[in-house]
């Protein structure tokens, strides 16, 4: 029995490795996606190693040095310094930490419930279960995401954690809807009908038969969503309801820097560009992923 499990595992690992190699082949045919992936990897590494690679890591903490304030970009300060004298480049790298954290946490919190609810609703299409779940989904979707996130954060104390929870609450219905569409059409496939006729439990059918066929679109969407979530987080911070100063959230920095426009433009432009770059990278990778998952016809 144990040998059998080992044999099972070996075969499945081999298959996964081959599948990965094939996926990489498809992904790498798209140069832009590869570029996006490289940029993304760099950003993630930079964010992880921020305290070690930035020239002025202490500037991410409360720090003032008015003597150095307002200096334009130079070799000492790649992105210049802000009013208070902090190196913007270092703060942007630290700012990526917040952005990436928001993205990861929100999606972790929001995707799972959305997928599960969509799965249940899709499988029970035509019953009251579907109606209840999808109408709740519709209600959440009817409110513009920013407004909803604003409302929730405003009710609670503005900080990173609450900001993340708010966005997660805004995000899950999109996954619910996506998986609902997938599950309700998969439900009519012969192999699902077969499982039902065999007498398999609903749980088995939903988790083992339908769900695996939904994963590809969900993963593509998650990658593309990272960018939008980061943007939403930055927007909340910009308004003052997210990452609070003096913490170096990217949106927060744009807000502070924008008071100095157009004269000391580097305070707002570089953090904004940083946001653009990370979103673009995620989008490019997401596009590439879509190609990877596309079924090829020969």
């Amino acid at each position, binding site marked *: 029995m144990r040998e059998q499990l080992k044999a099972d595992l070996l075969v499945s690992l081999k298959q996964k490795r081959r599948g990965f190699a094939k996926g990489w082949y498809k992904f790498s045919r798209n140069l832009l996606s590869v570029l996006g992936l490289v940029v993304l990897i760099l950003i993630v590494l930079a964010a992880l190693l921020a305290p070690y690679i930035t020239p002025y890591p202490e500037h991410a903490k409360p720090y003032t040095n008015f003597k150095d304030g307002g200096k334009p970009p130079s070799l000492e300060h790649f992105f210049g310094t802000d009013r208070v004298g902090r190196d913007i480049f270092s703060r942007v790298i630290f700012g990526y930490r917040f952005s990436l954290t928001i993205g990861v946490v929100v999606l972790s919190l929001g995707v799972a419930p959305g997928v599960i609810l969509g799965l249940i609703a899709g499988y029970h299409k035509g019953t009251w279960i579907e109606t209840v779940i999808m109408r709740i989904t519709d209600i959440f979707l009817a409110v513009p995401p920013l407004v909803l996130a604003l409302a929730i954060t405003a009710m609670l104390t503005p900080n990173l954690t609450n900001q993340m929870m708010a966005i997660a609450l805004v995000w899950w219905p999109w996954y619910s809807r996506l998986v609902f569409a997938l599950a309700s059409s998969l439900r009519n496939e012969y192999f699902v009908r077969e499982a039902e006729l065999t007498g398999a439990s609903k749980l088995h059918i939903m988790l083992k038969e339908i769900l695996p066929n939904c994963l590809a679109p969900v993963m593509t969407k998650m990658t593309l969503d990272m960018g939008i979530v980061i943007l939403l987080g930055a927007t909340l911070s910009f308004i003052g309801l997210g990452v609070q100063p003096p913490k170096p959230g990217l949106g927060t920095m744009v807000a502070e820097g924008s008071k100095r426009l157009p004269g000391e433009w580097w305070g707002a432009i570089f953090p904004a560009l940083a946001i653009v770059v990370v979103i673009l990278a995620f989008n490019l990778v997401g596009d590439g992923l879509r190609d990877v998952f596309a079924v*090829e016809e*020969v």
Partner: protein
Amino acid sequence: MKQNMSPLLDVRDLSVGFKIFEGYLSVLNGVELTLGEGERVGLVGETGCGKTTTVKSILRVLPMPPARIAGGEIFYRGKDILKMKRREVQTLRRMELTAIFQDPLMSLNPVFTVGTQLRDIVKDSLGASGKKLTKKQITARCIEALKETGMPDPERIMSNYPIQLSGGMRQRVCIAEALSTTAQLLLADEPTTNLDVTIQDQILRKLDELVEEKNTSVLMITHSLGVVMDLTQRLYIMYAGTMVEEGQTEELFASPLHPYSQGLMKSVPKLTGEGVSDGIPGRIPNYLDPPAGCRFEPRCEHTMPVCRTEKPPLFNVENGRHVACFLYRS
């Protein structure tokens, strides 16, 4: 029996492959096919033998990466289709070639009525050959075309959408579209596979009548032997990217020579009720790594050493019968 004049369509030593992740799929391996004017030729082969790839090559609709023409020519009235420029190919498709495919629902645009689509085609082809037609004339011609296919109530059908019609009726629309052009060559790729038996019967008989009348040349591609028996004069049998046998339809059916053709004929369940044969053992070759010699060799009972190393050409057996098998090397 070959035509005395040069053939309408002459596919010579066509080799086509596809580049995919796992490697290179060498699908068509020296395909040879000729079609004379007014001739009705069948192309029989099973799934994966390359018949659709051949049709697509003739129509030049293969997606060029990943597909690659590895060699050969396709002559239409003496000109090589593969070397034509895009403009020429488009004119060719519009004026000379026409096709009917397996799934009429895919061939017909779901958001336009039958009338709109038919009018488009009639207007396009007749207009281009110099005649200027009025709207009324075009519509009349369309209704005429539908009537010719045996469509009941053609006037009403003109304003229907494809989704409102049954499978048989949709295929009749496709046939009307195909035959109301000036095209001389009809490529029919499994036109009745999805249809009910009684409807298939009607449609094939109608098609027979129509091509007879217009003297259209037909290349009928199918995996169903029964369909080609009545409709074609000459027949090619295709396996794994090559033609393995060719001959007059009746003769071929009566005495198939190539081991694959023999196996195929035996596999068809007969009305005489003698039970079902086990079919042909083995599988079609892996196009990533096909056999170097005869591609049927791994499944053949009569294999000889030469079969493994050399690809058998189409040997001339007698009056127009060709078999790609070393058993018949004269």
